[in-house]
């Protein structure tokens, strides 16, 4: 870690040994954020466990089994212990595993986790940002409740955990573990762990690199998944009131290490590794999300000639590219328009031509018909003239005949009669 720097020895008290305390004091003032996501089927004991873990009563109404899809319900509480203020957010999955068709069960959960990362990324990318006062809603740990069947993991469990293991720290838990006997429990745990390994699911490993906690963490790593019993009721044992579940055949004490692993979970989750969980979320899962998201948007660290590219350059390049693209599209559209206009013009011209020829043809026809009619008219006129002549002649003859032959007219009268 020294990177070739000289190490100096101090000849007296300087005082920076108090630096960690300064940091701690500052953090106390800011307060801590811790966000837990509980995934489990309805009735697997999620709310009871949270109540027992934090030794308080979060108002959480029981949900029905008849919800059409999985929803997430987040509630934020402020807890204070001595001088530490903790902003605790519990996110519950409502309706998980209840549908007949469970194909989309895990998608809302993945979307929710991604949305929290996205919100943080947006805040980080802002020009004027306020990261210190930002309420961090990223999920720090996911408690996955396994049903105490005693056999193995369900397909839904495997699917869900596989889709979440690179986004969040998963701690698998066997809920309502008082229905499994001790011998069955160990077999069950082994089966679960081997199934997780064979499916390549990465659950959260308690860190073993720090000597103060490595021993206890390694032991705890071997106890995963924790078999939990939670209770909101207290039973009198001896002369103390303890959290327990009372059965006709005995009392299951929540805080008794022989009965269940509740104490181990509380130790690991809160007392020993809360800070590590937060750091893993930020340094590993969030960075992965950020990298994927920025690469999606087209940003790169190394430019085309293997030279490092800054975000600003990449942004400018992208904007330029986009602008060029836009121009090109505009040009294309313009060309298309011109083309279409030309085509339309040609069509119209052709139509015009056709109409013109038709018109001329019609005019010709009209002329011909007119000529014919004129001829006919002439002929008729001639006939009329002839007829008139004939009529005049006939009348002349008749007037001459009427003087000489009145019998003809009598005959005519008789004929008429």
């Amino acid at each position, binding site marked *: *870690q*020294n990177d070739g*720097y*000289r*190490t*100096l*020895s*101090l*000849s*007296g*008290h*300087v*005082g*920076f*040994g108090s*630096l*960690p*305390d300064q*940091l*701690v004091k500052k*953090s*106390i*003032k800011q307060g*801590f954020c811790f966000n837990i996501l509980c995934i489990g089927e309805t009735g697997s004991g999620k709310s009871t466990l949270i109540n027992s873990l*934090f*030794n*308080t*009563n*979060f108002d959480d109404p029981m949900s029905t089994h008849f919800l059409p899809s999985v929803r997430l319900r987040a509630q934020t*509480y*402020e*807890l*204070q*212990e*001595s*001088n*530490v203020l*903790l902003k605790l957010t519990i996110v519950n999955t409502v309706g998980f595993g209840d549908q007949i068709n469970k194909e989309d069960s895990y998608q809302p959960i993945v979307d929710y986790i991604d949305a929290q990362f996205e919100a943080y990324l947006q805040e980080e990318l802002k020009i004027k940002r306020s990261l210190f006062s930002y309420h961090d809603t990223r999920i720090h740990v996911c408690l996955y409740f396994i049903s105490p069947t005693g056999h193995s993991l369900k397909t839904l469990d495997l699917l869900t955990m596989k889709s979440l293991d690179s986004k969040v720290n998963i701690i698998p838990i066997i809920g309502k573990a008082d229905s499994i006997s001790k011998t069955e429990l160990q077999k069950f745990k082994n089966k679960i762990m081997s199934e997780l390994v064979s499916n390549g699911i990465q659950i959260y490993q308690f860190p073993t690199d*720090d000597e*103060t906690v490595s021993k206890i963490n390694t032991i705890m790593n071997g106890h995963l998944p924790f078999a939990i019993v939670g209770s909101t009721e207290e039973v009198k044992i001896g002369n103390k009131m303890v959290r327990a579940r009372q059965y006709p055949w005995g009392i299951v004490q929540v805080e008794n290490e022989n009965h269940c692993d509740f104490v181990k979970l*509380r*130790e690991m989750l*809160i*007392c*020993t590794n*809360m*800070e*590590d969980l937060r*750091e893993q979320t930020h*340094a590993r899962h969030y*960075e992965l999300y*950020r*990298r994927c998201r*920025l*690469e999606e948007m087209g*940003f*790169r*660290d190394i430019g085309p000639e293997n030279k490092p590219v*800054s*975000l600003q350059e990449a942004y400018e390049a992208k904007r330029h590219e986009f602008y060029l693209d836009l121009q090109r599209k505009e040009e294309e559209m313009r060309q298309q328009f011109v083309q279409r206009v030309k085509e339309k013009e040609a069509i119209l011209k052709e139509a015009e031509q056709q109409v013109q020829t038709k018109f001329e043809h019609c005019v010709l026809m009209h002329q011909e018909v007119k000529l014919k009619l004129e001829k006919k008219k002439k002929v008729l006129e001639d006939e009329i003239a002839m007829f008139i002549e004939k009529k005049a002649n006939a009348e002349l003859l008749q007037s001459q005949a009427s003087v000489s032959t009145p019998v003809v007219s009598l005959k005519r009268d008789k004929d008429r009669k």
Partner: protein
Amino acid sequence: CQLFGYVGIEAVLDQMKIKTMKTGFEFNIMVVGQSGLGKSTMVNTLFKSKVSRKASQPGQEERIPKTVQLQSITHVIEEKGVKMKLTVTDTPGFGDQINNENCWDPIIKYINEQYERYLREEILITRKRKIPDTRVHGCVYFVPPTGHWLRPLDLEFMRRLSKIVNVVPVIAKADTLTLEERAEFKQRIQEDLKTHAISVYPQEDFDQDPDDRALNDRIREKIPFAVVGADQEHQVNGKRVLGRKTKWGIIEVENPAHCEFPLLRDLLI
């Protein structure tokens, strides 16, 4: 919500402490002032070790550089299990030329360069787990003990730099001022700073709550601290103390009655 019993949330404080102790700290300070004001000695006294080699050794002439240069030396020091990477940036040549116009430009450029470097690391796609922090955390400005007012150079420099870095002005070689002269000088300096709207560390706009403000107000009354640096130990009343031995007495560096070095140390560290 009310907790009904012990949960163990406060254990997170210890977890945090352990983690920070493992990763270690980085602290970068810059000392600015004319040559001969005791900057190197002050740094050595602050960190109780030979952090900077003194500019002039007896019998060796050191050329005053023609322009302001910046020299950074980095050391790793450890106390009570806390590792700290300390970088001290010295500015030889500041205020030493005949024409000192724009002698603060190299300094401003350096500070902005460090910010730029950090920003560039921060907006990478694949960023490092722990971004190396070379940003200057504090700048100690040494005012010569004239006893009158701040000089135009001092005002110009502090005005520009207080906008980009935490400036802590100190009166150097304060053993040439009597206590009354010291008080008057401080008064005038404070007035000067106020007239020119120079906000030195601790800045008023960054006070977060009334406790902070009360604490910082007390510090602000005493700014600038009158300090004396020394790296030699002498015997006083049977104890070995750091001090300067003169014919008329021994000036104890860590004695609040003699000089305000402890206050400076508490403020910085």
